[in-house]
């Protein structure tokens, strides 16, 4: 019997009645994990919070029924909900850094729900349970650990404490909202293993919300794919990942970087519409290659394909199967040494008295893409900032076509600043919010080439074409654009300088997979057409294989492995590299 039974729920904004999610139905059996995947704005978090009887301010569950272990959630009184939360249904938040109370000790935070839901038990029994659950999430349970505060734990440990809090009262249902976003791959795989084991052993039904299909494919029994507030396809894991019928699901899977290096990634143009801009008919139609007239007129009905597999699509029978484009093996042709675009030799980087980079050597040839991979804190961003002239606390040499570069951007020649461009991680922070896009790009043209007026306008249009943005965007402000569009603006700004080298610092980490894939496509095309060299900094190993010629694996400020992309991935020499490869989730 299903312990979670959601039937036809609609959640709408109270003012204006715009529906955020529509007609959502699914069931979860004890011990089963349902993965809920979708891009940002698809409504997956709204659905997951509804299970706890919570809607964000200004929204309300308008219709439908949510049964959690026989209790009706829709329309339940606040005190009844409170009795269920933490006891019958528990929540693992996305960011434990903000979800844990920084002022309370670990033991106190786990005890809270026990004391609330089992006031009849003695404090010894409670402490016993705290130790037990900490052992289950593979954390120490000694007195010293129990007395710690959240800031004394690592990110992975914090997330496991959050899981311990959720599992403390032996809930029947657990809701996880992207609990591994922001964790390193090795930590992520440990956290996932913990969740999987706890659900299996205690028969807990889990709803696992994520935008990361690879993670879901490793964890979930069943998968629901959400798009624009609707579940467009739902089925068991194999049906979704290997026999998907919905064009959106297929494209999402094609957009996923493939660590095995078999296929190229393929982006989906456009972006998911916000609740108030959803089109009539099928919401995916404007982005769908298989769309026909009917798709933009009629809302597709819920069709059953197998006992477990349902789909909302007019064209599921004859939609094109997208054959994966095989990826061309890239391995080094030459390493001549004479004509290096950029050489980094024996670089030691510091923050005051603390050394964060140790004897780093990297060489980039013109038109080549070198990936710099490492977990958080490995020093990869510091290295890229040294190259960009934004961190000048280093010794050693960075030279550009054999000429030593000044440490700070201000000490460099104008041509050098023009030829080496830097693109930042977050497109939300890297573009001046108070200036229109056209002025942001135009400034580069004015600064480096003295282009103004109509000439500049023409050039801006060329650049926007290059990164596939509409011309009308020049008068828009950043807050009117989506994350993917903003990052393209940042790329266009870099390209405006006609650089020889672009330093890309985690440029896709704030983006959805489909958008990430199209940004990567854009960069790959640019490399072919302009011979620009790239230093591609990322924590995502699978992604490097789709773009890089060479890869440098970094750990604690040291490059532990450096070589051609395929040789490193096929036969890694450093233990650390093999460990990273092993823990990176992928579709298997």
């Amino acid at each position, binding site marked *: 019997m299903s312990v979670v039974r959601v039937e036809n729920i609609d959640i709408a904004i109270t003012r204006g009645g715009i529906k955020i999610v529509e007609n959502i139905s699914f069931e979860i059996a004890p011990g089963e994990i349902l993965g809920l995947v979708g891009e940002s704005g698809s409504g997956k978090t709204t659905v997951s919070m509804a299970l706890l009887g919570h809607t964000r301010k200004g929204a309300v569950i308008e219709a439908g029924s949510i049964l959690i272990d026989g209790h009706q959630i829709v329309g339940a009184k606040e005190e009844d909900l409170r009795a269920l939360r933490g006891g019958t249904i528990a929540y693992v938040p996305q960011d434990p850094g903000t979800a844990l109370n920084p002022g309370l000790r670990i033991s106190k935070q786990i005890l809270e729900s026990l004391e609330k839901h089992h006031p009849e038990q003695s404090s010894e029994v409670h402490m016993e349970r705290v130790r037990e659950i900490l052992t289950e999430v593979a954390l120490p349970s000694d007195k010293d650990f129990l007395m710690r505060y959240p800031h004394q734990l690592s990110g992975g440990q914090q997330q496991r404490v959050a899981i311990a809090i959720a599992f403390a009262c032996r809930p029947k249902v657990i809701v996880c909202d992207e609990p591994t976003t922001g964790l390193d791959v090795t930590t992520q795989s440990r956290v996932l293993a913990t969740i999987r084991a706890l659900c299996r052993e205690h028969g807990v039904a889990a709803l696992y919300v994520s935008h990361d299909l690879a993670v879901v494919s490793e964890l979930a029994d069943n998968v629901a794919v959400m798009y624009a507030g609707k579940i467009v396809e739902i089925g068991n894991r194999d049906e979704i990942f290997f026999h998907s019928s919905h064009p959106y699901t297929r494209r999402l899977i094609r957009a996923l970087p493939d660590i095995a290096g078999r296929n190229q990634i393929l982006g989906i143009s456009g972006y998911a519409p916000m609740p108030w801009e959803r089109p009539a008919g099928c919401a995916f139609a404007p982005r769908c290659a298989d769309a026909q007239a009917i798709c933009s007129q009629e809302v597709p009905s819920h069709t059953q394909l197998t006992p477990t597999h349902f789909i909302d699509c007019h064209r599921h029978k004859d939609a094109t199967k997208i054959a994966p484009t095989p990826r061309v093996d890239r391995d080094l042709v030459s390493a001549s040494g004479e004509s290096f675009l950029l050489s980094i030799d024996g670089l030691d980087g510091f923050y005051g008295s603390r050394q964060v980079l140790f004897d780093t050597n990297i060489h980039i040839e013109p038109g080549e893409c070198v990936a710099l991979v490492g977990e958080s804190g490995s020093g990869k961003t510091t290295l890229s900032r040294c190259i960009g002239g934004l961190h000048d606390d280093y010794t050693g040499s960075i030279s550009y076509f054999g000429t030593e570069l000044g440490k700070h951007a201000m000490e460099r020649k104008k041509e050098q600043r023009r030829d080496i461009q830097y693109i930042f991680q977050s497109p939300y922070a890297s573009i001046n919010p108070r200036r229109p896009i056209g002025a942001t790009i135009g400034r*580069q043209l004015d600064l480096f080439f003295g282009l103004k007026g109509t000439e500049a306008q023409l050039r801006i249009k060329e650049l926007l074409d290059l990164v596939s943005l509409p011309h009308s965007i020049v008068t828009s*402000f*950043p807050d009117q654009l989506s994350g993917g569009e903003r990052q393209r603006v940042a790329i266009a700004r870099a390209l405006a300088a006609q650089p020889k080298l672009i330093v890309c610092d985690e440029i896709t980490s704030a983006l959805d997979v489909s958008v990430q894939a199209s940004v990567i496509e854009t960069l790959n095309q640019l490399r072919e057409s302009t011979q620009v060299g790239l230093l591609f900094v990322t924590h995502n190993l699978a992604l490097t294989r789709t773009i890089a010629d060479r890869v440098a694996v970094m750990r604690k400020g040291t490059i532990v492995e450096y070589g051609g992309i395929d040789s490193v991935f096929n036969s890694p020499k450093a233990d650390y590299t093999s460990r990273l490869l092993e823990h990176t989730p992928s579709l298997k």
Partner: protein
Amino acid sequence: MAKTLKPKSQMRVLTALTFKQTYAKIGAVLVGAIIFIALFGPLFAPHTFDEFIDAPNAGRSPQLLLGADYLGRDVWTRFLCGGRSIIGLSFASTILGVGLGLIIGLFAASAKARTDALIMRGNDILLAFPQIVFVLLVVSGFGSSIFLIAITVGFTHAPRTARIIRAAAAEVMERDFIKAAIAVGEKRRRIILSELLPNVTSPLLVEFGLRMTYSIGLVAAVSFLGLGLQPPAADWGLMINENRGSMTVQPWAVLTPIFAIAVFTIGVNFITDSFAKVAIGIDRKGKE
């Protein structure tokens, strides 16, 4: 072209949103009324402001709308004529003080850590003087002229505004778009003017409103203490001072200017509060 046009249009959106709020509307009416009185009041005055009309502290009558003051002058006339100096002085000193504070704050935020520390510690020393004490010190030392009052009051605002602006600008300095500007070699002046300044406009305007109300209080207090405009000039602060002795007999001579000052202050606060609310909402949307 687009460069200069656009930030303005965003400002226009902000302003439009501000005046959609009820409190801002009320504030606008209040401020508008007082400014109208200050500017055009003298045109409607039935007498001249220093004319002796009736017996001292004469009560209200059909001829004297609000009675006469302690010397027998018409309170209504003096009220209509007495707003110009206080409103004008407040505006002048606020613009001066906030402008100076803005320059100091932006400069400090964009300077090297050491220069920044030096400026801000100097700023802290100035902050140690209570505003009113400093103003009285200067005015009693150098004599009371309107310009001196405006400049001194403005000067005491500067370190306070500088603090707020520096804090806001320091946060903006940490954002990546400033680093992007540094990386391509933009000049310091340009970073301050076109990257930093547009991003501190919201705290700046809120600060302007706040300093405006402080200015009114300070200028009124200086007049009240007899160091501002000198008799027989008509001035709201001076009126309160002159007539406070006979307040039990003739309360209108004191209450009318107090009421006007209060209405103006409350009105300005309504507008700036509404603006702050809108600006926070818009900034949040921009950052995510």
